[in-house]
């Protein structure tokens, strides 16, 4: 096969400086980056269709996150899928648990997390420690969070809602 036009993922030889034919590995990496991390669509692909796939992946993630964060999803009602999809644009998944957690914390900071979501986030935070960067781990000490109309207490891995 003759040389083909080099894509954006074409490798430039680190020392020689000449353009080499990109490997399948680098082309696959460029495609995944376009689909989940906001990288440009590699040359030659149908930009519209790759965009359709990118959106479909975010919709699929919205369903997966809703399965782990049912109250967060329910708190945003019919707009959940659109809401999550907008949030997830250009953010590779860290798994449903952490994606939902990151999103809930961001909404909470902005004051845009509805009460159901506030309660679910609090129930999680009092039983599991999550630093936002590494995998969440169970808490060893009791923890308390204020939620609308009461508090949530986490002790021995269980969350209790008091008041309200």
């Amino acid at each position, binding site marked *: *096969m003759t040389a*083909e036009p080099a894509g954006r993922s074409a490798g430039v030889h680190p020392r020689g400086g000449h353009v080499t034919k990109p*490997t*399948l*590995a*680098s*082309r*696959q*990496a*460029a*495609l*995944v*980056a376009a*689909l*989940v*991390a906001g990288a440009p669509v590699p*040359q*030659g*692909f*149908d930009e519209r*269709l*790759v965009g*359709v*796939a990118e*959106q*479909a*992946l975010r919709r*699929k*993630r919205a*369903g997966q996150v809703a399965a782990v964060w049912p109250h967060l999803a329910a708190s945003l009602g019919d707009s959940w899928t659109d809401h999550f999809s907008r949030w997830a644009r250009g953010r*590779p*998944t860290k798994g449903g648990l952490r994606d939902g957690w990151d999103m809930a914390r961001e909404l909470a900071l902005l004051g845009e997390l509805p009460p159901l979501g506030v309660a679910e986030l609090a129930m999680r935070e009092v039983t599991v420690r999550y630093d936002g960067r590494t995998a969440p781990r169970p808490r060893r000490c009791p923890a308390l969070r204020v939620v609308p109309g009461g508090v949530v207490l986490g002790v021995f891995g269980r969350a209790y809602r008091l008041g309200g």
Partner: protein
Amino acid sequence: MRTTDVLPPLGLGIGWRPEIAGLVADLPGLRFCEVIAESLRHDGVLPEPLDALRRRGVTVVPHGTRLSLGGAEPLDPDRVRHFASVAAALEAPLVSEHVAFVRAGGLEAGHLLPVPRTREALRVLARNVRTLRAELDAPLALEPIAALFDWPDDELTEADFLTELLDQTGTWLLLDVANCYANARNRGTDPAELLDRLPLERVAYVHVAGGDEHGGIYHDTHTAPTPEPVLALVRELCARHRPPALMLERDGRYPPAAQLHAELDAIASAAGLPRITTGVSNTTLAGTP
């Protein structure tokens, strides 16, 4: 049974999912189901309802979704070990995976992505299939996916690519008629033409499912009832060569039992197979053409 088939005639089955375990357990004529390999535990302990099906003689095929057989990076040995241990725990006569890749460059795609239909991709697939089969006792069936886009440098037609892949790797074909329908509809081609060019005698079993349309593109989501054009494709396929087994895939927005039963009956009817929803004894489920 045709001696060349990898499975005995098992009729109509369904994808086992925890959410519909009760409904699946109550299908009196069921002899075949499939389970997502990655949903099973590493220690080989099976979910009780699935193990109960196995004990009553239902054939359970593990279906891998995350091995990334089409990935240019080497297979993850832990994933291969898990897949092999699941197959052993199920005493599966067959296992299946996809003609796809799901991760690259340290990023998970979260879905099955197409490989280019090139010689290079064939070499990658053949290498990965060899690695996987070295750990497996059971034969392997490969499923072509529903792809929303193609690579710009395809060298082979889909039928030629798949035929060459099966020949080179000694694998079977897991044909998903819903994927055939989705691809043909989105590319503006005729799905029945693909059936004419595929080696149907190498079909191990068949997936049937429904999807949704968004913005003029059909997505094979498994969250909607099987549409009539997919049932028509089941009829087309079975008129040419009825596979030993077919099964419904449903992965969310599960309908009430009556609706799922009606869908299973519609597929059985399209395939010319006995219903599995009524109290037929297993021994009458011949399914041989």
